């Protein structure tokens, strides 16, 4: 079992709905952005392409963040999810330096979105986050336990995301990678990410 996410860049329109739904599902405080969408432009006018690329924790099979963690707070689960145990994290942030995808976030001090205090949503939601520790995408592990997909996959309005078991050759995720030429980011680093992209 190895959970993975296949993102079809032909379908993705860069709307940032995945980034927003991640924000709400995980109630991440200001500045903590477990999922973001960047744009990558190539070519010269008028022959130009610009592609939207959603980025999140790649849940690498060989995670460089785990290697450098001095307390064992970062671990890889049997299902492939790279997880952080906030109780063990001491906030040294070596993992943030090690992550080649820049997908780890340090919550120095809890802030709110509005200067006059937290909204009712934030009052409840931020109880799940600790100051002084590093956090990141966990493929919505609590949702997986309930048999649900990660929130970004469940909401994507172009259905660009397919979540599944990369070790199962019959999963839709594996089929798409095979049939549509799925690729990983920075394969040369040997991290072997579990997030794949289909060409735009």
């Amino acid at each position, binding site marked *: 079992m190895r959970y993975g996410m296949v993102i*079809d860049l*032909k*379908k993705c*329109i*860069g*709307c*940032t*709905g995945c*980034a*927003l*739904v991640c*924000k*709400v*599902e*995980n*109630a991440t405080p*200001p500045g903590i*952005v477990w999922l*973001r*969408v*960047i*744009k990558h*432009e190539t*070519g*010269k*006018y*008028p022959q*130009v*392409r*610009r*592609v*939207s690329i959603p980025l999140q924790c790649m849940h690498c099979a060989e995670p460089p963040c785990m290697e450098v963690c001095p307390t064992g707070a970062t671990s890889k689960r049997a299902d492939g999810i790279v997880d952080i145990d906030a109780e063990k994290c001491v906030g040294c942030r070596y993992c943030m330096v090690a992550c080649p995808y820049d997908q780890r976030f340090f919550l120095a001090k809890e802030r709110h*979105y*509005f*200067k*006059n*205090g937290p*909204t*009712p*949503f934030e009052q*409840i*939601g931020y109880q799940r986050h600790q100051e002084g520790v590093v956090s990141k995408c966990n493929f*919505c592990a*609590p*949702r997986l336990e*309930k048999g649900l997909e990660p929130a970004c996959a*469940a*909401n*994507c*309005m*172009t*259905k*660009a995301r397919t979540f599944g078991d990369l070790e199962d050759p019959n999963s839709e995720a594996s089929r798409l990678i095979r049939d549509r030429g799925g690729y990983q980011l920075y394969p040369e680093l040997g991290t072997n990410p579990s997030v794949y992209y289909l060409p735009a």
Partner: protein
Amino acid sequence: MFDVARSQEDVWIPTTCGLCYSVCALKVHRVNGTVVKIEGNPDSTTNRGRLCPRGVSGIMTLYNPDRVDVPLKRTNPAKGLDVDPGWVEISWEEALDAVAARLKKIRQEDPRKLLLTGTVTTQDEVPFAKIFAMAFGTPNGWNSGAGNHCGTAEHLYGALLHASWSKQPDPDHCRYLLNFGTASGFGSYYCVTGMAQRIAEARVRGMKHVCIDPFLSPSAEKADEWIPIVPGTDGAFAMAVLNVLLHELDIYDGDYLKHHTNAPYLIGDDGVYVRDAENHQPLIWDPLLGAAKPFDSPGISDFALEGEFSVDGLRARPAFALLKEHLKPFTPEWAETITSVPAATIRRVATEFGQEARIGSTIVLDGKTLPYRPVAVTYFKGAQGHKNALLSCMALELLTEIVGASNVPGGLLGMNSCSLGHPDSDQPKWIPHAGRDGLMVTGYWPNPPPPYPPKEVKKPETIDLRAMVPTCPGSSGALPVVMADPERFKVPYKIEMNFHVGANHVMTFADPNAIAAAFKDVFQVSFALFLDESTYFSDIVLPAASYLERLSHTADWMSSNSPVGEWCYHVRQPVVETIAERRSVCEVLLDLAERLEMREEFYALINVMLDLKEPHRIDPSHRFSWEEIVDRRYKSLFGEGRGLKWFKEHGLLKWPKKVEEVYWKPFSHARVPIYFEWFKTLGEQVEAMAQKTGIDLDTSAFQPLPEWRPCRSHRENSDGFDLYAIYYKFPMQTFSGTYDNPWLDEVCNIERFAYGVAINAETSRRKGIEEGDWMEITSVSTGNTVRGRAAVTEGIHPEVIAIAGCGGHWSKYLSVASQEGKGLCFEWLMPVGLDNVDIPSLTQDLCVKVKVAKAGAAS
């Protein structure tokens, strides 16, 4: 995910989104009274369980502390863009007393002194407020955000050619989408989420998408081919494609033109129909009989599309022949000089489009053999928001008509032109039908009456010229011009009061200085979520309930349902108790009707406009609550067993669409114009009325055949004003209204185009501007300057800068939106004036020339 193990309450409530006009279905998760998640309702076929970023972000609209919570009264009598109104809190009782007193006075004097302004994003409150305004007795209304963001001429052609407010490519069968810059399927436009999903599927199955757009916009990014073009010249491109189709390739759908359009109608040298002497119907030429016959007479063997005939000794030619001859000079080489698109590219696109239309081919759907024309042409504000709107849009529309791709499989579909109703109730029901001269009349139109048959040209008795120019189907770009100087337009009154329901007209139409001047002496009552820039001009502000706090009489409308698949009607219901003293606008309007003693007129119009049927019509002998009216609306539509209670529980009702609803054109006898004969005759009436009333009005654009005419900006050569500024929609914000949402702000901060200004790499080099530099952008037309950060890109025409959405707020009561660098307000660059309005459609021209310099640099 919220831990609900120890919760006393854990519910999911079905309702609909209200953050744009798409009306996506929601399931809202409430835990112990707090909304913790908004998801798409997977049962709904409108958005199929998915939401755009705005839809997901609604929690921050609900709980935003900048929201207005109590009624407010201004204490500072001076009004201005930066003048603090000096708000003090008052009770609802005091507020409504003041509002009612003012309304009473106006109603006694002249009810037309009341103006209703509203936003198009609330498909429940503003339509209901329109009923209130009609009952009150005023014809004056303005969907202000629509001035810049809407498509007045596009909607006109929607009515005339597609029997609908808007149009979409057939996502199931289209193979070639020629998209003039619209974001349909790419995060904006109607049925935004559902269409994004369906167009994404079309991309994967191989639909080719050619996007013509000055900027490599969110939709152009997804195209197989991006063709940059000079702003405001899309009509010239379309004219050249028509030229190639008709004069070089001889591609047109003769069978469609003969039987579904007025292409065979004979036109005299005077430019109008040659009519039968007895029944006055337009004549056609039957080439086998060698005689002219009324178009609808029995026994016609064929319809001539070309040739020259003699009827009663006078020359008569089929409309198609005139169109073809008219298009002859407009070659790709001609268009290249205007659009900057190489002639070879135009010729290739025309060839691909014409061939892919597969004229003559058929497809069998549900046992019915139908024409198969898998090409569609889409456009909206970008291509149509110009001085040449009517005639440019005509050219764009004719592309679809010439190849017969209108409302058939694979082609361009009206958004729900034909509704045969739910199988149990036969409601809601509307069917396009043939009217005067055999031409199509819409089965339903959101702003009745529909544009065809043409309305009477009246004296300028409305504040927006629409009484005199009845071809404008929506909001008029002339309103602020007339409002500022009614005497000049012979309007016999002044607007004294503005009933303002959720729009930010001060910053979403054009030059805020001009809008401020038009509104500063008006008593303004605002139903507001936020103290935005427009409320700076309000005398009283009433705290409005957001879409998550109110009940509605089904917000679904003609253009919210998906064009294919299934019908789906939803409930919009409160998901939390209304916060603080916020109230539903519809409830307040019912209260006000009592205070004004206008229950009888209001209820009579509610019965008509909400189409309440016996025994569910409301009787003015006693007072009805909003809940009761909503209940009766549902029961009128779907039967006694499906009232409000049923909808609250089930959330929605859906049923499959029939082939003859989606692809209705082959089943209809109604013809559509390819020669807009009545534009010519109506234009003459408008001209006569203008002369009679002494109003200077350029009516030269009332023409039956397409033209491209330059906008003011195309002729503008002032020193240094060398770039066009354009504005475009993007998926992270709706108009100006969502900018105070901090979650949307966070994603916009990451995307450099969201708050920045796109500028061509070579152009920026020439001007010494680098990525992230602050730039000053000055309009040649208004003299106003806006500031924005450069987002340098290869993906934009060298003569253009592009601004996303409508940011750049300045109200001190918007703690997120009014910070520096949160986008730009494009409207500062656009002038207000009839020189900048397409007269027949009353469309505001958003084509503007600017000077761009690095901030702080010597000019």
